[in-house]
């Protein structure tokens, strides 16, 4: 399953702390600290559908109206997110070790 696509990673990251509805996920994913992934409703719901079928996220059943449903990360989704974060951390540590960031300045 790894490496995750930027969209999947940023959706999982957005749901890591609390359950959210579609627009809240989209908004958080667009933030620099959320991955900086700008997506529209088409990408969001297509990805959520596949992630639900893979068992990464699920609907909470909570809804403030029929149009705004809430999603949460599953235990498996948390494990996958953790594994991807660890992978990225290793990459970043390699980047630091090779002084790539200093070279780019």
């Amino acid at each position, binding site marked *: 399953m790894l490496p995750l696509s930027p969209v999947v990673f940023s959706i999982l990251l957005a749901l890591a702390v609390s359950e959210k509805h*579609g627009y809240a996920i989209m908004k958080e994913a667009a933030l620099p600290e959320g991955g900086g992934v700008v997506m*529209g409703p*088409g*990408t969001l719901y297509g990805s959520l559908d596949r992630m639900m079928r893979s068992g990464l996220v699920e609907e909470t059943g909570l809804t403030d109206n029929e149009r705004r449903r809430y999603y949460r990360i599953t235990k498996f989704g948390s494990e996958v997110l953790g594994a991807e974060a660890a992978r990225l951390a290793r990459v970043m540590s390699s980047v630091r070790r090779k002084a790539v960031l200093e070279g780019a300045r």
Partner: protein
Amino acid sequence: MKRLPPPMLWLYRGALVIYPSRLRYAYREQMLQTLRDAYRDRNIRAVHFWFRVYKDLVQSSLTERFKMVRDFVFKAPIAFHTVTLALVLTVLGAAAAITMQQMLRRGANQPQIDMAQWYAGEIGAGENPGNVIPPGYVDLERSLQPFVIFYDEQGKPGPGTGYIEQRVPVPPSGVFDFVRIHGSENVTWQPRPGARIATVVRRVNSKTPGFILAGRSLGPVEYQERLLWRMVMVGWVIVMTLLLGGASLLNRAQRAKPVAA
């Protein structure tokens, strides 16, 4: 607070027709609500907002459709790969068989081409057709032997070795007309039902102008062709049976595997 204009909402709702139907039915209302929320919160100009929204809709529609096809293919891999392999083998087998059939057909003309060339050369060099063509009697309906016949400028038969019902057969006049213009022609000729002959007709330019026809029964070649197609059909049935049997065993083995926890 920016409120989404209803016409724009209707337009987007209509544009969702390009989104895969399963996703559209499951998420349409949520997508429209997300669009309302995003429009209300937008900090970019409306034109940029809509450009981004529609670009995303087109891109995601294509991506999701591609992924649906990919998922379908990998959901039933054995069936899919069996059908694909069967198609590939059928096409390759048919191509090989057609190539072999064409080689047989072309090979059927080879001795006649050489014969027609030699006799045309000899007569063209001034020899009398009656002296060049040896005496002989080949029954076109029964014999598999090659034969040769000389026809004069008007297409009347002269000396020759090919006979059908004890008479020298004459090809349709259109053949001579064609050869007059083009110099030579390879024709499959059927002077009698059941007697198919591969003939080569060449123009003879000499003091005795005319045409030389060399022919041979297509019987042996057609027999080889029938044999070839019979072998191809038997081979195809065996390969398909093995393929289906293998796929069925593989499927059974896959179903018997314990499901991972």
